[in-house]
């Protein structure tokens, strides 16, 4: 099955990104494909490489980057939502790409299941 994941909230402020990450790992472990993770609204804030996290806590951006490196998952950060929140190419972490909102429509068409993580 092809899964799509949509994340609407930023790191730390809400659990959405944590839940999405653990869900994504389980999707992969069950042998499914993740067509794309799409970061929209405050979700775009997960993509900054400037996050500097205390050692006793999880590093949300690095965790996402590592998951993509290991399994080749595509992460798209909505350009319109990113711009108004100050997420630009210069601060983008590895394996995140800025892309158009249309790539969310593409994902909704392509994925057998699109699962939203939100506030």
């Amino acid at each position, binding site marked *: *099955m092809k*899964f799509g994941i949509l994340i609407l909230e930023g790191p730390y402020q809400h*659990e*959405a990104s944590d*839940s999405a990450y*653990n*869900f994504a*790992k*389980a*999707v992969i*472990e*069950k042998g*499914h494909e993740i067509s794309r993770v799409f970061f929209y609204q405050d979700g775009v804030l997960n993509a900054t490489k400037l996050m500097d996290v205390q050692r006793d806590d999880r590093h949300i951006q690095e965790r996402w980057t590592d998951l993509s490196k290991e399994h080749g998952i595509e992460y798209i950060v909505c350009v319109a939502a990113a711009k108004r929140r100050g997420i630009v190419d210069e601060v983008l972490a590895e394996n995140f790409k800025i892309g158009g909102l249309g790539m969310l429509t593409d994902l909704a068409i392509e994925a057998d*299941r699109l*699962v*939203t*993580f*939100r506030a």
Partner: protein
Amino acid sequence: MLHMINKSPFESNSLEDCLRYASDGSPILLYEDGIYGALAGSALEARMKEIMANHDVYVLKADVALRGIEKLIDGVKEVDYSGFVGLVEENKAVSW
């Protein structure tokens, strides 16, 4: 449809809103702060039991453990993340 609820029913109306639309028989997954709806002995237990007459109610184990909850309302089914994926394999899903 799988109806996903992530807000505390003590604070948010999202579970009750969802129930106005959810067909009988559609499963409900409580995750994140939504799992507090499954607290045994709470003021919402009677209402949750009514809901469970028409819906299978699941809680995400990881979120239950994170919050230190041991006693769940009888009949609530626990799933791990793999079980969560299983529910989404079997059902289209919406997040309220």
